[in-house]
């Protein structure tokens, strides 16, 4: 595949909850290896986009291509049919997600949290899965807690395990939804450090939703500002944070800064 082909191609998708239209004909593209930050006010649909990419929500209309293949549709004899569970399962291999509240499996130790999916979905033998898990846990600085249960970890440690767990399936695309916002202020930094390292070291494509403007600035190649399900403004971090063009963006950043956040 040529480097210039987008790995994510969103084409006029729409999504409603009941009568409330969250996304209405949204289109956007992400290049392989790009690190993208999605910012914007509460309720603007940032989480919804990630959840749609992870197939946690269905779309009402439009198309999504991941890595050249339709996500919600299957091509059969030149026709586009709604995807069945098998197609979705195959597509999900390309995508991993880390949640705001970690969502670790509380009844499994750290190691088992990381090895469960590779062993079940890829049939990786236990020994190989544990070797790889150990590497990942080392990367996020959690190797010494491999035998701990999630309940024995701090929030920051839980989130680092959740990152390792998502990486264990070696997805091409990683989605991060406000991964630091449930953490005590003092624990935020350790998670951000892991993610900065990750961004620098891998050529994975990453989408990050955050309210931490400073972090978005450091992390992203490109920033998208959302409002009411639309991309209001996009550009390099410096452009967006220092010289926002749109009034809505300016207002949003002013409010956030006034609330005590650094940009």
């Amino acid at each position: 595949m040529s480097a210039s082909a987008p790995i994510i191609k969103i084409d006029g998708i729409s999504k409603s909850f009941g009568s409330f239209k969250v996304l209405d004909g949204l289109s956007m593209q992400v290049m392989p290896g790009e690190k993208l930050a999605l910012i914007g006010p509460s309720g603007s649909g940032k989480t919804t986009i990630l959840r749609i990419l992870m197939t946690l929500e269905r779309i009402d209309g439009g198309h999504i291509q991941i890595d050249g293949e339709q996500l919600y549709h299957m091509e059969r004899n030149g026709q586009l049919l709604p995807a069945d569970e098998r197609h979705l399962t195959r597509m999900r291999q390309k995508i991993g997600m880390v949640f705001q509240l970690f969502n670790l499996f509380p009844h499994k130790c750290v190691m088992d949290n990381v090895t469960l999916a590779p062993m079940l979905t890829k049939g990786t033998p236990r020994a190989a899965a544990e070797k790889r898990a150990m590497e990942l846990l080392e990367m996020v600085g959690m190797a010494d807690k491999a035998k701990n249960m999630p309940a024995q970890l701090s929030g920051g440690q839980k989130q680092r395990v959740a990152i390792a767990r998502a990486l264990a399936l070696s997805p091409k695309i990683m989605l991060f939804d406000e991964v630091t916002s449930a953490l005590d202020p003092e624990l935020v930094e350790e998670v951000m450090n892991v993610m900065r390292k990750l961004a620098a070291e891998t050529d994975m494509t990453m989408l990050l939703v955050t309210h931490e403007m400073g972090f978005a600035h450091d992390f992203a190649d490109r920033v998208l500002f959302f409002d009411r399900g639309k991309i209001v403004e996009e550009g390099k971090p410096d452009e967006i944070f220092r010289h926002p063009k749109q009034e809505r963006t300016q207002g949003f950043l002013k409010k956030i800064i006034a609330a005590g956040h650094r940009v």
Partner: protein
Amino acid sequence: MTQWSGYFGLILQGALVTIELTLMGSVLALFMAFLAGMGRLSRFFVLRALATAYIEFFRGTSIFVQLFWAYFVLPFIGISLTPLQAGVLALGLNVGAYAAEVVRGAIQSIGREQYEACTALNLGRWQGMRHVILPQALLVMLPTFGNNAIELLKATAVVSLISLTDLTFQAQVVRSQTGNTLVPFATILIIYFVLALLISWGVRSLERRMARGLDGVRA
């Protein structure tokens, strides 16, 4: 007075029948609980409807009616059960209907985020259920299962009405042989209570064993 030891033997025989009924009824109830409880959460309408009909029917009609039905009416459609079979069937199906709601509630009590984590890790529906949801839900179910088992134990007393020789029935026999009401009834009340204590003790230690390492999760 030597007679009393004989009568006490009679009551012990009854206790054995009661224990047997409770155990076999619990096994059937447990089986039905998972079958119907998970059936209610199925994607398929037919399974959901069947499970709902079973649950509402057996919770809606009284255990007595079910017992009399199993004993006196089923033979007419060609199913002739021994009193023990009829007792186990009625008790198991009845308590199973209540426990099915426990299974359903426990599975639903596991937060949506756990299901979403399964999807994000690309686990199949059954894989997620088997490795992630059920192990957590089981711990939620256990205490209520304990209560259900005690309810089942108590309900075995009504099988005496279809002349199964359980504890209560034997107490009646002893009473009619000796003319003494207080002694046999007080004795079986204590036996029932001890059995109930045994059940709740057993369930609690099982719960403790399963909760080990999960500290803080259910708080």
